[in-house]
Protein backbone atom coordinates (compact mmCIF):
# COMPACT_ATOMS: atom_id res chain seq x y z
CA UNK A 1 0.00 0.00 0.00
CA UNK A 2 1.20 3.51 -0.63
CA UNK A 3 0.19 6.78 0.95
CA UNK A 4 -1.27 7.80 -2.41
CA UNK A 5 -3.52 4.74 -2.57
CA UNK A 6 -4.66 5.39 0.98
CA UNK A 7 -5.37 9.03 0.13
CA UNK A 8 -7.36 8.02 -2.95
CA UNK A 9 -9.27 5.38 -0.99
CA UNK A 10 -10.48 8.12 1.33
CA UNK A 11 -12.88 9.00 -1.50
CA UNK A 12 -14.87 5.88 -0.65
CA UNK A 13 -15.62 6.71 2.97
CA UNK A 14 -19.23 7.17 3.93
CA UNK A 15 -20.89 10.45 2.94
CA UNK A 16 -22.04 11.05 6.49
CA UNK A 17 -18.42 11.50 7.59
CA UNK A 18 -17.85 13.91 4.70
CA UNK A 19 -20.97 15.87 5.61
CA UNK A 20 -20.07 15.87 9.29
CA UNK A 21 -16.61 17.29 8.64
CA UNK A 22 -18.11 20.03 6.48
CA UNK A 23 -20.81 21.19 8.84
CA UNK A 24 -19.90 20.20 12.38
CA UNK A 25 -17.99 22.23 14.92
CA UNK A 26 -16.01 20.84 17.81
CA UNK A 27 -17.80 20.52 21.14
CA UNK A 28 -17.01 23.53 23.27
CA UNK A 29 -15.32 25.29 20.37
CA UNK A 30 -16.89 28.10 18.47
CA UNK A 31 -14.25 28.56 15.83
CA UNK A 32 -12.14 31.67 15.65
CA UNK A 33 -15.02 34.06 15.20
CA UNK A 34 -15.33 34.68 18.95
CA UNK A 35 -11.65 35.53 19.13
CA UNK A 36 -12.17 38.53 16.92
CA UNK A 37 -14.39 39.98 19.61
CA UNK A 38 -12.08 39.35 22.56
CA UNK A 39 -9.73 42.29 21.95
CA UNK A 40 -12.69 44.56 21.17
CA UNK A 41 -14.50 43.41 24.31
CA UNK A 42 -11.37 43.94 26.44
CA UNK A 43 -10.83 47.42 25.02
CA UNK A 44 -14.52 48.21 25.58
CA UNK A 45 -14.38 47.11 29.21
CA UNK A 46 -11.16 49.02 29.83
CA UNK A 47 -12.50 52.17 28.19
CA UNK A 48 -15.67 51.91 30.23
CA UNK A 49 -13.60 51.46 33.39
CA UNK A 50 -11.35 54.37 32.50
CA UNK A 51 -14.34 56.58 31.70
CA UNK A 52 -15.99 55.68 35.01
CA UNK A 53 -12.72 56.37 36.83
CA UNK A 54 -12.32 59.76 35.17
CA UNK A 55 -15.99 60.55 35.76
CA UNK A 56 -15.54 59.96 39.48
CA UNK A 57 -12.57 62.33 39.55
CA UNK A 58 -14.23 65.14 37.62
CA UNK A 59 -17.29 65.28 39.83
CA UNK A 60 -19.75 63.73 37.44
CA UNK A 61 -19.21 60.50 39.33
CA UNK A 62 -20.06 61.99 42.72
CA UNK A 63 -23.16 59.88 42.96
CA UNK A 64 -20.99 56.78 42.79
CA UNK A 65 -19.31 57.68 46.09
CA UNK A 66 -20.84 56.96 49.44
CA UNK A 67 -21.55 60.02 51.49
CA UNK A 68 -19.11 59.20 54.24
CA UNK A 69 -16.17 58.88 51.84
CA UNK A 70 -13.73 61.75 52.31
CA UNK A 71 -10.76 62.38 50.05
CA UNK A 72 -7.70 64.30 51.22
CA UNK A 73 -6.50 67.19 49.06
CA UNK A 74 -3.42 65.26 48.11
CA UNK A 75 -5.51 62.26 47.15
CA UNK A 76 -7.83 64.36 45.01
CA UNK A 77 -4.89 66.04 43.31
CA UNK A 78 -3.36 62.68 42.54
CA UNK A 79 -6.61 61.34 41.19
CA UNK A 80 -7.31 64.36 39.04
CA UNK A 81 -3.90 64.28 37.39
CA UNK A 82 -4.49 63.44 33.73
CA UNK A 83 -2.32 60.28 33.56
CA UNK A 84 -2.08 58.37 30.30
CA UNK A 85 -5.13 56.24 29.76
CA UNK A 86 -2.92 53.33 28.71
CA UNK A 87 -1.29 53.29 32.13
CA UNK A 88 -4.64 53.04 33.83
CA UNK A 89 -5.67 50.25 31.50
CA UNK A 90 -2.44 48.33 31.94
CA UNK A 91 -2.52 48.67 35.71
CA UNK A 92 -6.05 47.36 36.01
CA UNK A 93 -5.33 44.60 33.49
CA UNK A 94 -2.25 43.45 35.32
CA UNK A 95 -4.13 43.32 38.57
CA UNK A 96 -6.83 41.17 37.08
CA UNK A 97 -4.94 38.81 34.86
CA UNK A 98 -3.57 35.72 36.52
CA UNK A 99 -3.96 32.12 35.51
CA UNK A 100 -2.54 28.73 36.49
CA UNK A 101 -0.88 26.84 33.65
CA UNK A 102 0.55 23.38 33.18
CA UNK A 103 4.02 23.56 31.62
CA UNK A 104 4.04 21.31 28.54
CA UNK A 105 6.94 22.15 26.25
CA UNK A 106 9.79 24.61 26.74
CA UNK A 107 10.42 27.12 23.97
CA UNK A 108 13.13 29.70 23.36
CA UNK A 109 11.03 32.49 24.76
CA UNK A 110 9.23 30.59 27.51
CA UNK A 111 7.06 27.52 27.13
CA UNK A 112 3.87 26.09 25.70
CA UNK A 113 1.35 25.44 28.43
CA UNK A 114 -2.21 24.38 29.04
CA UNK A 115 -4.69 26.43 31.06
CA UNK A 116 -5.18 24.47 34.27
CA UNK A 117 -7.24 26.78 36.43
CA UNK A 118 -8.74 30.25 36.02
CA UNK A 119 -7.78 32.64 38.80
CA UNK A 120 -9.30 36.02 38.07
CA UNK A 121 -9.82 36.14 34.32
CA UNK A 122 -12.48 34.61 32.11
CA UNK A 123 -10.79 35.13 28.77
CA UNK A 124 -9.48 31.55 28.69
CA UNK A 125 -11.03 28.18 29.15
CA UNK A 126 -9.54 25.25 31.01
CA UNK A 127 -7.61 22.95 28.68
CA UNK A 128 -6.79 25.74 26.22
CA UNK A 129 -3.23 25.68 24.90
CA UNK A 130 -1.22 28.90 25.15
CA UNK A 131 2.27 30.06 24.19
CA UNK A 132 3.98 31.76 27.08
CA UNK A 133 6.56 34.44 26.40
CA UNK A 134 8.50 35.62 29.43
CA UNK A 135 8.92 39.38 29.20
CA UNK A 136 12.40 40.87 29.17
CA UNK A 137 11.67 42.68 32.40
CA UNK A 138 10.12 39.64 34.04
CA UNK A 139 11.35 39.29 37.61
CA UNK A 140 14.81 37.66 37.59
CA UNK A 141 13.92 35.14 40.22
CA UNK A 142 10.78 34.26 38.29
CA UNK A 143 12.66 33.80 35.03
CA UNK A 144 15.08 31.49 36.81
CA UNK A 145 12.22 29.53 38.32
CA UNK A 146 10.59 29.29 34.95
CA UNK A 147 13.80 28.02 33.41
CA UNK A 148 14.10 25.34 36.08
CA UNK A 149 10.48 24.40 35.57
CA UNK A 150 10.70 24.10 31.81
CA UNK A 151 13.92 22.08 32.14
CA UNK A 152 12.13 19.74 34.48
CA UNK A 153 9.31 19.41 32.01
CA UNK A 154 11.77 18.55 29.25
CA UNK A 155 13.63 15.96 31.27
CA UNK A 156 10.66 14.19 32.78
CA UNK A 157 8.39 11.89 30.87
CA UNK A 158 5.08 13.20 29.64
CA UNK A 159 3.07 11.99 32.61
CA UNK A 160 5.36 13.59 35.19
CA UNK A 161 5.73 16.82 33.26
CA UNK A 162 2.01 17.33 33.49
CA UNK A 163 2.37 17.94 37.22
CA UNK A 164 4.47 21.11 36.73
CA UNK A 165 2.00 23.89 37.42
CA UNK A 166 2.76 27.60 37.48
CA UNK A 167 0.85 30.71 38.40
CA UNK A 168 1.49 33.44 35.85
CA UNK A 169 0.52 37.09 35.81
CA UNK A 170 0.53 38.49 32.33
CA UNK A 171 0.63 41.95 30.83
CA UNK A 172 -1.13 41.09 27.61
CA UNK A 173 -2.67 38.27 25.64
CA UNK A 174 -2.71 37.95 21.87
CA UNK A 175 -5.74 35.82 20.96
CA UNK A 176 -4.59 35.40 17.35
CA UNK A 177 -1.48 33.48 18.36
CA UNK A 178 -2.71 32.42 21.82
CA UNK A 179 0.34 34.12 23.29
CA UNK A 180 0.63 35.34 26.87
CA UNK A 181 3.28 37.94 27.72
CA UNK A 182 4.20 37.10 31.27
CA UNK A 183 5.55 39.51 33.86
CA UNK A 184 5.56 37.18 36.86
CA UNK A 185 5.69 33.44 37.28
CA UNK A 186 5.83 31.10 40.24
CA UNK A 187 5.42 27.38 40.77
CA UNK A 188 2.32 26.16 42.55
CA UNK A 189 1.40 22.90 44.21
CA UNK A 190 -1.06 20.77 42.27
Amino acid at each position, binding site marked *: *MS*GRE*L*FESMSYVDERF*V*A*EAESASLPGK*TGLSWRKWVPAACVGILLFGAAAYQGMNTGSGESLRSEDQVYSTEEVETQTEPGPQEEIQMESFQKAASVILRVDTPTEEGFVGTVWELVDTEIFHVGMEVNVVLAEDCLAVSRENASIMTDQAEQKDCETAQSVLVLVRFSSFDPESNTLYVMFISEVEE
Partner: protein
Amino acid sequence: MEDSELIALYWARDERAISETDAAYGRRLLALADRILQSREDAEESVSDTYMKTWNTIPPQRPNHFFAFLAKICRNTALGCLDWKNAAKRSAEVVSLTGELELCVPDRSQERKLESRELGRVLNAFLESLPRESRLIFMRRYWYADSIAEISARYGISESKVKTRLHRTRRKLRGFLEGEGICV
Protein backbone atom coordinates in the same frame (compact mmCIF):
# COMPACT_ATOMS: atom_id res chain seq x y z
CA MET B 1 -32.46 26.74 -2.17
CA GLU B 2 -32.75 23.64 0.04
CA ASP B 3 -30.96 20.43 -0.91
CA SER B 4 -34.28 18.63 -1.36
CA GLU B 5 -35.37 21.30 -3.85
CA LEU B 6 -32.11 21.00 -5.76
CA ILE B 7 -32.46 17.24 -5.95
CA ALA B 8 -36.05 17.67 -7.11
CA LEU B 9 -34.78 19.83 -10.00
CA TYR B 10 -32.42 17.05 -11.07
CA TRP B 11 -35.24 14.53 -10.89
CA ALA B 12 -37.42 16.84 -12.97
CA ARG B 13 -34.54 17.13 -15.48
CA ASP B 14 -34.70 20.88 -15.05
CA GLU B 15 -31.42 22.45 -16.23
CA ARG B 16 -31.66 25.12 -13.54
CA ALA B 17 -30.45 22.32 -11.25
CA ILE B 18 -26.87 22.94 -12.35
CA SER B 19 -26.87 26.72 -11.99
CA GLU B 20 -28.61 26.46 -8.61
CA THR B 21 -26.13 23.84 -7.45
CA ASP B 22 -23.31 26.11 -8.56
CA ALA B 23 -24.82 29.03 -6.66
CA ALA B 24 -25.19 26.95 -3.51
CA TYR B 25 -22.00 24.91 -3.51
CA GLY B 26 -19.82 26.06 -6.42
CA ARG B 27 -17.37 28.01 -4.31
CA ARG B 28 -16.77 25.21 -1.85
CA LEU B 29 -16.36 22.63 -4.60
CA LEU B 30 -13.93 24.89 -6.43
CA ALA B 31 -11.88 25.34 -3.26
CA LEU B 32 -11.76 21.57 -2.76
CA ALA B 33 -10.65 20.89 -6.35
CA ASP B 34 -8.17 23.76 -6.21
CA ARG B 35 -6.57 22.39 -3.04
CA ILE B 36 -6.00 19.07 -4.78
CA LEU B 37 -4.99 20.36 -8.21
CA GLN B 38 -3.47 23.72 -7.30
CA SER B 39 -4.60 25.02 -10.66
CA ARG B 40 -7.60 27.29 -10.96
CA GLU B 41 -8.27 26.28 -14.54
CA ASP B 42 -8.14 22.53 -13.84
CA ALA B 43 -10.22 23.03 -10.70
CA GLU B 44 -12.95 24.83 -12.65
CA GLU B 45 -12.96 22.01 -15.19
CA SER B 46 -13.28 19.45 -12.38
CA VAL B 47 -16.23 21.31 -10.92
CA SER B 48 -17.95 21.43 -14.34
CA ASP B 49 -17.37 17.69 -14.72
CA THR B 50 -18.81 17.23 -11.24
CA TYR B 51 -22.05 18.91 -12.31
CA MET B 52 -22.27 16.76 -15.44
CA LYS B 53 -21.67 13.57 -13.46
CA THR B 54 -24.25 14.67 -10.90
CA TRP B 55 -26.73 15.35 -13.72
CA ASN B 56 -26.12 11.84 -15.05
CA THR B 57 -26.38 10.22 -11.64
CA ILE B 58 -29.51 11.89 -10.27
CA PRO B 59 -31.85 10.18 -11.00
CA PRO B 60 -31.71 7.32 -10.19
CA GLN B 61 -29.81 8.32 -7.05
CA ARG B 62 -31.30 10.46 -4.33
CA PRO B 63 -28.43 11.45 -2.02
CA ASN B 64 -29.02 11.97 1.69
CA HIS B 65 -26.15 14.43 2.07
CA PHE B 66 -26.15 16.43 -1.14
CA PHE B 67 -22.98 18.46 -0.57
CA ALA B 68 -21.07 15.35 0.52
CA PHE B 69 -22.35 13.60 -2.59
CA LEU B 70 -21.12 16.45 -4.80
CA ALA B 71 -17.83 16.78 -2.97
CA LYS B 72 -17.15 13.08 -3.34
CA ILE B 73 -17.61 13.29 -7.11
CA CYS B 74 -15.52 16.45 -7.21
CA ARG B 75 -12.68 14.89 -5.19
CA ASN B 76 -12.61 11.79 -7.41
CA THR B 77 -12.70 13.90 -10.55
CA ALA B 78 -9.89 16.16 -9.34
CA LEU B 79 -7.76 13.18 -8.32
CA GLY B 80 -8.42 11.69 -11.77
CA CYS B 81 -7.06 14.87 -13.38
CA LEU B 82 -4.07 15.13 -11.08
CA ASP B 83 -0.70 14.67 -12.70
CA TRP B 84 1.12 13.11 -9.74
CA LYS B 85 4.58 13.45 -11.26
CA ASN B 86 4.06 17.12 -11.95
CA ALA B 87 2.54 17.58 -8.48
CA ALA B 88 5.63 15.98 -6.94
CA LYS B 89 7.86 18.38 -8.87
CA ARG B 90 5.82 21.32 -7.62
CA SER B 91 5.85 19.92 -4.04
CA ALA B 92 2.08 20.25 -4.03
CA GLU B 93 0.16 19.97 -0.76
CA VAL B 94 -1.48 16.77 -1.95
CA VAL B 95 1.95 15.14 -2.21
CA SER B 96 2.79 16.01 1.38
CA LEU B 97 -0.60 14.59 2.39
CA THR B 98 0.19 11.27 0.75
CA GLY B 99 3.59 11.40 2.43
CA GLU B 100 1.90 11.75 5.82
CA LEU B 101 -0.42 8.83 5.04
CA GLU B 102 2.55 6.73 3.97
CA LEU B 103 3.35 6.55 7.68
CA CYS B 104 0.08 4.67 8.23
CA VAL B 105 0.99 1.94 5.78
CA PRO B 106 1.56 -1.37 7.54
CA ASP B 107 4.40 -3.77 6.86
CA ARG B 108 4.35 -4.75 3.19
CA SER B 109 5.07 -8.37 4.02
CA GLN B 110 1.47 -8.83 5.06
CA GLU B 111 -0.65 -10.75 2.63
CA ARG B 112 -4.08 -9.21 2.33
CA LYS B 113 -4.52 -6.88 -0.63
CA LEU B 114 -7.57 -4.69 -1.03
CA GLU B 115 -9.18 -2.64 -3.77
CA SER B 116 -9.74 1.04 -3.07
CA ARG B 117 -13.47 0.53 -2.55
CA GLU B 118 -12.95 -2.22 0.01
CA LEU B 119 -10.27 -0.17 1.71
CA GLY B 120 -12.83 2.63 1.89
CA ARG B 121 -15.09 0.30 3.86
CA VAL B 122 -12.24 -0.46 6.28
CA LEU B 123 -11.64 3.28 6.63
CA ASN B 124 -15.33 3.70 7.48
CA ALA B 125 -14.93 1.29 10.37
CA PHE B 126 -11.81 3.13 11.47
CA LEU B 127 -13.51 6.54 11.33
CA GLU B 128 -16.45 5.16 13.26
CA SER B 129 -14.07 4.07 16.03
CA LEU B 130 -12.48 7.51 16.41
CA PRO B 131 -13.54 10.21 18.86
CA ARG B 132 -15.50 12.90 17.04
CA GLU B 133 -12.83 15.59 17.34
CA SER B 134 -10.12 13.33 15.91
CA ARG B 135 -12.45 12.22 13.12
CA LEU B 136 -13.30 15.77 12.09
CA ILE B 137 -9.66 16.84 12.04
CA PHE B 138 -8.60 13.71 10.15
CA MET B 139 -11.34 14.16 7.56
CA ARG B 140 -10.52 17.86 7.04
CA ARG B 141 -6.89 17.00 6.47
CA TYR B 142 -7.05 13.85 4.35
CA TRP B 143 -10.43 14.15 2.69
CA TYR B 144 -10.76 17.89 2.14
CA ALA B 145 -6.98 18.38 1.91
CA ASP B 146 -7.14 21.36 4.28
CA SER B 147 -3.89 22.82 5.56
CA ILE B 148 -3.05 22.68 9.27
CA ALA B 149 -3.68 26.43 9.51
CA GLU B 150 -7.13 26.09 7.91
CA ILE B 151 -8.13 23.30 10.31
CA SER B 152 -6.85 25.32 13.25
CA ALA B 153 -8.90 28.34 12.14
CA ARG B 154 -12.03 26.28 11.38
CA TYR B 155 -12.17 24.61 14.79
CA GLY B 156 -10.57 27.34 16.91
CA ILE B 157 -7.75 25.17 18.20
CA SER B 158 -4.01 25.67 18.00
CA GLU B 159 -1.97 24.36 15.09
CA SER B 160 0.16 22.29 17.44
CA LYS B 161 -2.96 20.60 18.76
CA VAL B 162 -4.06 19.81 15.20
CA LYS B 163 -0.66 18.32 14.42
CA THR B 164 -0.64 16.27 17.61
CA ARG B 165 -4.14 14.97 16.98
CA LEU B 166 -3.28 14.03 13.39
CA HIS B 167 -0.11 12.27 14.50
CA ARG B 168 -2.03 10.18 17.03
CA THR B 169 -4.78 9.38 14.53
CA ARG B 170 -2.27 8.27 11.90
CA ARG B 171 -0.64 6.00 14.47
CA LYS B 172 -4.06 4.57 15.32
CA LEU B 173 -4.81 4.04 11.63
CA ARG B 174 -1.60 2.14 11.15
CA GLY B 175 -2.48 -0.10 14.09
CA PHE B 176 -6.02 -0.51 12.75
CA LEU B 177 -4.82 -1.52 9.28
CA GLU B 178 -2.28 -3.90 10.78
CA GLY B 179 -5.06 -5.39 12.85
CA GLU B 180 -7.04 -5.97 9.66
CA GLY B 181 -3.97 -7.56 8.07
CA ILE B 182 -4.16 -5.22 5.13
CA CYS B 183 -1.69 -4.56 2.37
CA VAL B 184 -2.88 -2.80 -0.78
